[in-house]
């Protein structure tokens, strides 16, 4: 492991510790009390999922332009980490929803359903990548799916504005945000910490994908039968080959 990779991992661990202590130190919310502290892990998870799928989109586009497989590996690794953060957003949302809304899941809620669909589409993206052994074909098809699938990200983000269902509106939306100042700082600290975790995971996953590709290439070369190995040696001496 490279030195900068070790430093990034260490920084992510420290940042998570700082994020946790800022979440513990945040004030309790007036109506939700301590339940609002779940926001400090739920919201960054959702944001990081969006960022990860954005990197998958960018990686796919860059691959299509440059044909550099490195960008395909970045796209695939980011999608895997994005699925991980989407799962975290879904699970923490359910844990938050039960005591506050009285239900873990609402099948009619636009944000929950669109996030769940996004999760399964990107699981499908990962399954597609595993199903194609040829690297060029895999890169091309997954780049196209990564670009098409990203359409869901703005739909998920704006679903709370487009549909009036159970999930609340955007928690933090700039200077006019309805969120109290006491929550902004821990939220931003946790967002930074989760971003470092995302970077550490994606860098490690991309490095492993590169090593896996080298092994696959070596194995594929070893398996190639030499051209013409099925052709018998010509009989130039006039003697019969049939003994």
């Amino acid at each position, binding site marked *: 492991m490279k030195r900068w990779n070790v430093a990034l991992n260490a920084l992510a661990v420290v940042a998570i510790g700082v994020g946790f202590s800022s979440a513990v130190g945040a004030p309790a919310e007036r109506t939700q*009390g*301590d339940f609002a502290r779940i926001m400090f892990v739920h919201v960054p998870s959702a944001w990081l999922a969006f960022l990860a799928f954005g990197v998958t989109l960018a990686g796919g586009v860059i691959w299509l332009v440059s044909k550099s497989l490195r960008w395909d590996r970045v796209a695939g690794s980011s999608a895997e980490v994005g699925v991980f953060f989407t799962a975290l957003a879904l699970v923490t949302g359910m844990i938050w929803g039960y005591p506050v809304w009285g239900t873990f899941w609402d099948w009619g809620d636009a944000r929950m359903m669109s996030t769940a669909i996004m999760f399964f589409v990107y699981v499908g993206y990962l399954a597609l990548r595993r199903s194609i052994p040829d690297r060029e074909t895999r890169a091309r098809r997954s780049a196209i799916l990564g670009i098409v699938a990203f359409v869901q990200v703005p739909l998920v983000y704006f679903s709370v504005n487009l549909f009036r269902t159970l999930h609340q509106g955007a928690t933090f939306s700039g200077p006019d945000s309805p969120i109290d100042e006491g929550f902004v700082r821990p939220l931003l600290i946790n967002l930074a910490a989760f971003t470092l975790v995302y970077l550490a995971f994606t860098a490690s996953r991309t490095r492993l994908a590169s090593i896996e590709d080298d092994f696959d290439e070596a194995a594929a070369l070893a398996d190639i039968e030499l051209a013409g190995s099925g052709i018998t040696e010509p009989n130039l001496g006039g003697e019969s080959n049939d003994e």
Partner: protein
Amino acid sequence: MSEGWVVLAYVVVYGFMLAYAGYLAGKARSLRRRAEG
């Protein structure tokens, strides 16, 4: 009671992070072994 749900959410998040980090470490170890073998 409210602390229970909050603790569960944080345990899930940090637990998942640890599990994924463990998965990556295991994958790296197995690739290293494959390279040596």
